[in-house]
């Protein structure tokens, strides 16, 4: 039994209830386990299964709530009401949608590669769920605390694109292929700034474990690492193909892209995975930059985590509602010419600061924040100046100097319809 699992209070509680007399539970007062002695291995497995079931169902339930909440927020941003007919305040709308989706006919196009076509929805849903296995939801509430948690997240999230490519290729549809190619281009471009943006966080925390990163955040890293947060947030939005980077789905151009040929619950899984990605992204942002579950004492840590999660989700939805989509070349340009430079600046500045204060205390973190903010503002301003499309200096009024001569001459007086009559 390793120490990491024992730190996990969720796991430990279930395990100890099942196998009470174990030595690991000595510190807590459990009268007797439910299972007879010698079956600790069974208790171990059952506890693990219970946690997996709990987390998966929790995430799926969260996604259902998120879909409803997102639609309500969309409505409010567009001065509408959003879905409100089915159930109290429309909360059952997404349940009804799920039921409807399940009862639809499952279509497979004739040209499709059937095995890959059916595999793709599973491929896309699995990594989205895997991300949650390393995220601490509260004090001791997590599935596993990997010492390379951050690396694991990076690796798993990039699998999504493989699923998109599989889906597009197996559909045998040219629009889908176009969308998948965009998706791959997006991934390759944004994975790099995203990975580089968290380097600053790793340097400050001195660890890749998410638990350690939270422990190191005496000051939330959004204050210490504004540039890292900015780049990571944008890159994460691009990674999950959200507006303004929703090139893969691009409703007006590609008509849902790689989802073109999917129907029924296969489409439902894609849809679910999209929202799970949104949820996991906000969870990662919360963990890395908003000090995760840390908060004031009387309120439980899980509540703090969820509150911060909802705040991040709100910002993501706000972004999506406000911004138009970028073109594919502009998106790539932005990644390589804009975000990449910003992350480099961030890494250099953070490295210098770490060299000055190797083990930063809270006070020193505040000092770093004071230095990092001006750097962030100046560099973002500089990069936007370099990359941005300038506005027209003075678009109006040119009525005095039209580009084409209009009504500058007149026809011979005798040729006008009325005048010619008098002449005759």
């Amino acid at each position: 039994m390793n120490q990491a699992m024992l730190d996990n209070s969720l796991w430990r509680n279930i395990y100890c209830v099942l196998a009470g007399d174990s030595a690991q539970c000595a510190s807590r007062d459990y009268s007797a386990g439910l299972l007879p002695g010698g079956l600790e291995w069974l208790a171990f497995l059952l506890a693990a299964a219970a946690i997996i079931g709990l987390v998966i169902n929790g995430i799926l339930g969260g996604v259902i709530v998120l879909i409803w909440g997102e639609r309500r927020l969309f409505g409010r941003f567009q001065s509408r009401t959003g879905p409100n007919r089915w159930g109290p305040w429309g909360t059952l709308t997404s349940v009804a949608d799920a039921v409807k989706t399940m009862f639809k006919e499952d279509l497979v196009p004739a040209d499709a590669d059937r095995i890959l076509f059916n595999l793709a929805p599973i491929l896309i849903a699995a990594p989205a769920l895997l991300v949650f296995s390393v995220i601490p939801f509260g004090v001791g509430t997590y599935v596993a605390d990997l010492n390379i948690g951050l690396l694991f997240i990076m690796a798993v999230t990039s699998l999504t694109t493989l699923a998109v490519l599989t889906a597009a290729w197996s559909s045998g549809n040219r629009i889908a292929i176009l969308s998948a190619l965009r998706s791959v281009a997006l991934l390759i471009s944004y994975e790099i700034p995203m990975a580089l943006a968290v380097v600053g966080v790793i340097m400050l925390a001195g660890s890749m474990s998410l638990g350690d990163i939270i422990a190191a955040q005496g000051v939330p890293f959004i204050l210490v690492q504004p540039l890292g947060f900015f780049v990571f947030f944008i890159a994460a939005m691009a990674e999950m193909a959200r507006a303004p980077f929703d090139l893969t789905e691009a409703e007006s151009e590609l008509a849902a892209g790689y989802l073109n040929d999917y129907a029924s619950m296969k489409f439902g899984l894609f849809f679910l995975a999209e929202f799970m990605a949104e949820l996991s992204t906000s969870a990662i942002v919360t963990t890395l930059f908003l000090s995760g579950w840390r908060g004031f004492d009387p309120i439980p840590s899980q509540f703090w985590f969820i509150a911060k999660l909802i705040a991040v989700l709100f910002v993501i939805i706000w972004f999506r509602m406000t911004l138009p989509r970028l073109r594919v070349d502009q998106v790539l340009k932005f990644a390589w010419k804009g975000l990449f430079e910003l992350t480099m600046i961030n890494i250099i500045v953070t490295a210098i600061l770490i060299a000055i204060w190797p083990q930063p205390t809270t006070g020193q973190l505040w000092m770093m924040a004071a230095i990092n903010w001006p750097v962030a503002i100046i560099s973002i301003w500089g990069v936007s100046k370099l990359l941005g499309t300038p506005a027209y200096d003075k678009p109006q009024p040119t009525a005095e100097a039209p580009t084409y001569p209009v009504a500058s001459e007149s026809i011979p007086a005798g040729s006008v319809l009325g005048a010619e009559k008098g002449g005759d």
Partner: protein
Amino acid sequence: MTTVWSGTALAEAIEAFAPGSVESSAGTDVWLKPESISTVCEGLKTRSEFKFDLLSSLTAVDYINHFEVVYHLTSLPMNSSAVLKSRVGLGRSDASIASVVPIWRGADYQEREVWDLMGIRFEGHPNHKRIMLWEGYPGHPLRKDYVTYDQSIASSAPDDRDGGE
């Protein structure tokens, strides 16, 4: 205010650079001979006394025994307008006239529309195809002798008019 060329004055001016091209004139209208339409339009566009750079409208009317192609021209520099007409297909046979697309690009879709709906052929049009109806549609609907409510038309429509996906 846009000034309108009187028909007689315009006919005189056209005769000056393209003799023998005008059939008759009255009011605001000038009737041109169909074979001279290209020369006249070229002159009307380029010559400094006309400068008709904008082709407002191009259409055709079916007058039972002949068709009439109508050009509404506008000159932006002179803020003036004129009407050209040309009788083609006398006796309803072989209605055709030279295309003005080389002179005014704006005639492109309008000439295709006239061909599609009225059946007047524009010689020299770069893309002389039907525009509203599909290739193989029987007849030209805006002609006065066109028989409506023909159920066989629907079955002549191709399944997929794009011819692809």
